[in-house]
């Protein structure tokens, strides 16, 4: 296998494939500096930094940004708690219904978002639940659980079960073992899972449009700008922010979990 070399065809095709995945995103950055605000003219007629200032002072951007942060933070917190609980249960002995539960956790991201969104929308309509921050959070937390769960359960499998027993053997009760042994060893995996869940929630638009009503998260604001553009470069500035919020967590999660199996993000 080591003596074998990749043929030039495979090399070129793989390189082109990766380039196809990465190059388009660079344009987002370029267009944030263009002087042309009415079209997507290429190459940009001139470059300017003014749109960052304009974006900062646009009053319609801050409330959606704040809402997105709130939703992502609460959804992530719920997902961490619920994901950790399931991981704890699943890391225990086998029990009846185990496989069904793992399917149930996976379902919200395995089915297209439109189904989850429409399902929640139907339920809210039938029970006369008005749209609010909480209806958005309800949806987000549901599909974030699996992200945290995947990271936590992978780490638990890797942990030597002996250290939990050793702790009990030395006189620690269950809560002490949790605090002094399990949590410190699980911490970075939970952090990684939490950051990925935050990123996923912060960026989510497909389910959100069905559960948000008149409220606007940052992705919904962006979607509106995409359909009816106003100052186009301002949208690019916001896009850079959203990109950073989703890009950095996956990078950080990768470094937090890389000494184990490469599980970060495998669940999306």
């Amino acid at each position: 296998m080591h003596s074998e070399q990749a043929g030039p065809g495979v090399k070129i095709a793989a390189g082109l494939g990766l380039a196809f995945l990465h190059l388009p995103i660079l344009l987002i950055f370029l267009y944030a500096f263009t002087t042309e605000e009415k079209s997507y003219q290429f190459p940009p007629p001139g470059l300017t930094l003014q749109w960052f200032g304009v974006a900062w002072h646009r009053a319609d951007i801050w409330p959606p940004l704040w809402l997105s942060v709130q939703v992502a933070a609460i959804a992530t917190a719920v997902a961490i708690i619920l994901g950790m609980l399931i991981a704890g249960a699943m890391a225990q002995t086998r029990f009846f219904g185990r496989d069904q539960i793992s399917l149930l956790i996976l379902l919200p991201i395995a089915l297209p978002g439109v189904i989850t969104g429409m399902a929640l929308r139907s339920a809210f309509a039938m029970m006369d639940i008005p749209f609010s921050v909480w209806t958005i959070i309800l949806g987000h937390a549901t599909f974030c659980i699996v992200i945290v769960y995947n990271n936590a359960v992978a780490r638990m499998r890797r942990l030597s079960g002996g250290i939990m027993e050793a702790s009990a053997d030395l006189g620690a009760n269950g809560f002490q073992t949790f605090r002094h042994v399990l949590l410190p060893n699980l911490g970075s995996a939970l952090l990684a899972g939490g950051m990925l869940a935050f990123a996923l929630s912060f960026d989510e638009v497909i389910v959100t449009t069905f559960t948000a009503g008149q409220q606007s998260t940052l992705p919904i604001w962006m979607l509106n700008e995409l359909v009816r553009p106003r100052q186009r470069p301002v949208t690019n500035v916001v896009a850079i922010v959203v990109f950073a919020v989703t890009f950095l967590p996956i990078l950080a999660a990768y470094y937090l979990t890389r000494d184990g199996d490469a599980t970060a993000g495998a669940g999306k």
Partner: protein
Amino acid sequence: MTPAVEFNAVSRHFGTVKAVDGVDLTIAEGAFFAMLGPSGSGKTTCLRLISGFEKPTAGGIRIFGQDVGAVPPNRRNVNTVFQDYALFPHMTVRDNVAYGLMVKGVDRRSRLEKAEELLALVKLPGYGERKPGQLSGGQRQRVALARALINEPRVLLLDEPLGALDLKLREAMQDELKALQKRLGITFVFVTHDQHEALSMADSLAVFNDGRIAQIGTPEDVYSRPQTRFVADFVGSSNVLPPELTAALGGPSKWASLRPEAVRLVPMGHDGTVKTVRYLGAGSRVVLEIGGTEIAAMVPAGQPIPETGAQAAIAFDPRALHVMAE
């Protein structure tokens, strides 16, 4: 005197698998007790029954006279040196050792002082700041030992404690453990599959087979007077004689064991054929085939050694022939 550990008809079944099946066992206080047996014989499960990580499906366990049927592991004053050591990877060596005192609520200064004491006891002074990942296998084992001793347990359980060490280190540790046990006076219960280890360290041992105790006694008892073929074969590498051969050699018509050291070779005889000869330095081990059974004899250095294929007879002191129950 109350025994340290008592098993009263204890069974631990996993579904249809009888890991431990009706075991009665008494371990005296201050004993160095070995549980010996092949893997899957139930010895480790017995250890876990004492520490509380397994619960008996039948029978009762007492520790110093108290029934522990309702006592979880954290409240048993019994500590374990785990087979893979199970050190906490995120803590320093000192914090690992001090852990037992920390969860008891002992203040930081006293517990770290005590941890240093124990590190000195296991000959690792000055290693407190390191992480377990920076230690060798032998050092980790000492840390695990110190950690298990800090709570001053009444019983110390050791699960194949020397299994991961190389031969030289293992022999050194055997002596150290023995000396440590004498000094501390704590009851040691250790699990091993190595008969030499069990015989040389324990002052009392139980031989496990298929979830049951095949024999229990002193090393001398078990080695010289095995009660079953399994024990004779597993513990002593003894010659196991089927009833017919025992009878032919002048004993009763029963299974018997005969230690190779007790067997002398008579060159002129015609009992059987020499199959193999292995030179062992202090002597040679000669295996003869007699009536379909292989009999080993230890021939001391300086005595004539027959060649492979030659005919030979054996002789032994009749008292060396040990008749077994089964």
